[in-house]
């Protein structure tokens, strides 16, 4: 009996063991299957899902390069700023509280902000119900303002006793305070022009979502200024904090190169201040001034009025954003008389003393009468420049001949771009020789039937000041990197020798008489420097001929005349009241020249100063 019971017990135990073993086997089988399912069958899907949860690729934006003047003054710089966004789904019914906390800091209308923060249910194209989870509240928010906004949100008073919240409510309110309003991960940049209107036409501005240069130096050197992006491939933990040890790739961005211009902020400021005074006095449509170093072609200042603030180019009228110095052309008028006279002197067909009969103010040629403002008899070539005789200039042109005059115009750079590093430059107009009519040879020498930009006129005069050598205008001095190393150095670039140094000296002698008593620009004379210059007053051309009462007045000159340091052009488009270049532009030239000479410490050539000779060793040292 006992043996039977024992046998039955053993049998039962074995059954249990078999059952248990089967359960274990099944369990392990199921686990094994799950393992294979997770590790093999769904490997790719799960791996990518896990990677999405932890892997982050962060784009590291480069900082756009600065623009500085030749003395290192900051003209344009970039700051990293935030794009403030919100997730209305997390905000829920608290949108008015959030709007109340953020509106004053972000400088937004509270009502409008509250509306934008309201959660909305939208049906997308596929008919699926979606909530608005990403709303841009404001772009280009400085970091300090963003931190202030985030702080205000954290300390926001909701009028509830939060200590009585359950866990779920606590999580919800934590999300509301810390995650509902956030800064976009992609850093944005704000271009800042601290001088506001200062050198606005040279600098240009940036625009668009991609923050690219749209005008001026910003546009021309955009590819150098922008730099190149870096990136970081890394992993984050469950709280979205970066796990530095798991960083896989870390490529630093290369910041944009810094641009150093030939512009001198001090001179630019003087020019802008004097132009503003002239603008108020003569109320022209536009006024332009250019200051050039004749030896190098370096542009020290370039200003136009009206101007604009590149910090907010969108609110400026398009015509104010135009750099008139390179984009606008006009018949230059009498300033152009320098070209035929210099050409004739260079060809040695006249000298400064050669006499031309000026027909007592009325010269009939080609069936038309050409007039002078005053009736002159015989004038020397020098006096033709001094008095700005149209008839005298026409007769010099006639002696020179159309082909040679045309060739010299081109050699002085008219009818071609000067290749300055600024966008929008136009060529001006020099008609082909075959299109010249019978009158052209008498009209072109006095600056009619030809158009030029203010820059072309300034460079022509600079060529005279530079011994007849035309230089390419340069506005960029060098590019440097973040460490201050010069990466690209721009050098003065001679274009061609237009006239001989002797011819340039001769025309300079004539130009020196213009600001003297008896000349047309007495108001351009400087007390301490000899000025060589030329006035221009051209009637503006329009449809159907010249427009009565509309003039283009200009003065272009350089000083000290025998060792030129600066060449200055001033031009006014339709000045009101006085319209002669000698009465409108010449005084502006004088004001700019006097202040600039003092600022740059140029040695006067008209006063004998009490010089103190330093040192007691007269022998030159090796």
């Amino acid at each position, binding site marked *: 009996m006992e043996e039977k019971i024992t046998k039955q017990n053993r049998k039962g135990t074995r059954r249990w063991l078999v059952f248990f073993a089967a359960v274990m086997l099944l369990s392990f089988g199921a686990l094994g299957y799950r393992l294979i399912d997770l590790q093999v069958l769904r490997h790719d899907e799960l791996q990518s899902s896990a990677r999405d949860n932890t892997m982050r690729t962060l784009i590291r934006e480069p900082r756009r390069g600065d623009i500085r003047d030749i003395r290192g003054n900051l003209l344009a*710089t970039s700051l990293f700023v935030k794009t403030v966004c919100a997730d209305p789904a997390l905000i829920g019914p608290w949108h008015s509280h959030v709007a109340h906390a953020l509106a004053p800091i972000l400088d937004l209308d509270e009502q409008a902000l509250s509306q934008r923060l309201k959660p909305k249910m939208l049906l997308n194209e596929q008919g699926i119900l979606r909530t608005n989870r990403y709303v841009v509240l404001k772009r280009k928010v400085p970091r300090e303002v963003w931190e202030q906004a985030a702080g205000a949100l954290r300390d926001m008073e909701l009028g509830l006793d939060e200590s009585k919240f359950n866990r779920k409510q606590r999580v919800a309110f934590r999300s509301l305070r810390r995650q509902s309003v956030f800064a976009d991960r992609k850093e944005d940049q704000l271009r800042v022009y601290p001088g506001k209107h200062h050198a606005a036409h040279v600098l240009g501005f940036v625009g668009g979502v991609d923050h690219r240069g749209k005008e001026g130096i910003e546009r021309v050197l955009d590819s150098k200024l922008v730099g190149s992006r870096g990136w970081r491939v890394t992993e984050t933990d469950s709280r979205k904090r970066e796990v530095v040890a798991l960083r896989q790739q870390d490529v630093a961005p290369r910041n944009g190169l810094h641009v150093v211009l030939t512009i001198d902020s001090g001179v630019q400021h003087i020019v802008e201040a004097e132009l503003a005074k002239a603008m108020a006095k003569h109320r022209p449509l536009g006024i332009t001034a250019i200051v050039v170093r004749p030896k190098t072609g370096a542009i020290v200042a370039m200003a136009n009025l009206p101007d604009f603030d590149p910090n907010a180019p969108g609110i400026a009228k398009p015509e104010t954003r135009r750099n008139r110095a390179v984009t606008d052309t006009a018949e230059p008028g009498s300033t152009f008389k320098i070209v035929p006279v210099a050409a004739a002197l260079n060809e040695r067909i006249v000298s400064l003393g050669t006499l031309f009969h000026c027909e007592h103010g009325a010269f009939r040629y080609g069936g038309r009468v050409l007039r002078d403002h005053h009736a002159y008899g015989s004038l020397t070539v020098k006096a033709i420049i001094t008095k700005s005789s149209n008839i005298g200039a026409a007769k010099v042109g006639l002696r020179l001949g159309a082909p040679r005059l045309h060739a010299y115009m081109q050699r002085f750079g008219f009818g071609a771009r000067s290749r300055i590093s600024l966008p929008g430059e136009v060529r001006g107009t020099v008609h082909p020789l075959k299109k010249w009519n019978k009158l052209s040879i008498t009209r072109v020498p006095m600056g009619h039937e030809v158009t030029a930009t203010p820059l072309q006129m300034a460079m022509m005069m600079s060529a005279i000041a530079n011994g007849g050598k035309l230089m390419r205008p340069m506005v960029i001095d060098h590019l440097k990197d973040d460490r201050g190393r010069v990466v690209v150095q721009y050098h003065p670039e001679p274009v061609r020798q237009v006239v001989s140094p002797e011819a340039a000296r001769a025309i300079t002698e004539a130009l020196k008489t213009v600001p003297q008593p008896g000349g047309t620009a007495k108001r351009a004379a400087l007390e301490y420097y000899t000025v060589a210059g030329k006035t221009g007053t051209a009637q503006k051309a329009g449809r159907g001929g010249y427009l009565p009462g509309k003039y283009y007045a200009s003065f272009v000159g350089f000083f000290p005349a025998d060792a030129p340091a600066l060449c200055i052009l001033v031009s006014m488009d339709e000045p009101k009241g006085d319209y002669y270049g000698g009465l409108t532009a010449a005084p502006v030239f004088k004001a700019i020249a006097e202040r600039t000479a003092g600022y740059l410490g140029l040695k006067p050539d008209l006063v004998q100063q009490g010089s103190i000779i330093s040192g007691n060793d007269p022998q030159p040292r090796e």
Partner: protein
Amino acid sequence: MNRKRTTMSVRFGPALKAVLICLVTCSLGLGYVWQKKQINDLGAQIKENENKLEDLRRENKRRSDTLAYLMSPQELDARLRQLGLDLEVPRPEQIVVLVDAKGKADSTRPLRTASR
């Protein structure tokens, strides 16, 4: 009966080996964990320093921009007018030019001057 062969006798060699293996394994495990913690701490430290460096760079940039703005000619000019200091560039007759006997004066070059 040999005492060494009794079931109750302790065989020190294998026991020592087992203990040593356990110790080595534990040490390796602890070392691994310690190392991971160190890496993690260093990572956090690196991140903190990176953020600090970035903040300092930003602050440096802000201050240098402010300095540049305050030193710009237009700002200085505005301040002079605002404060009524009536400063202006000296006129040439107020300037004594110190001509170096050894060098030739070049009128195109800006001169170092002293005003009186």
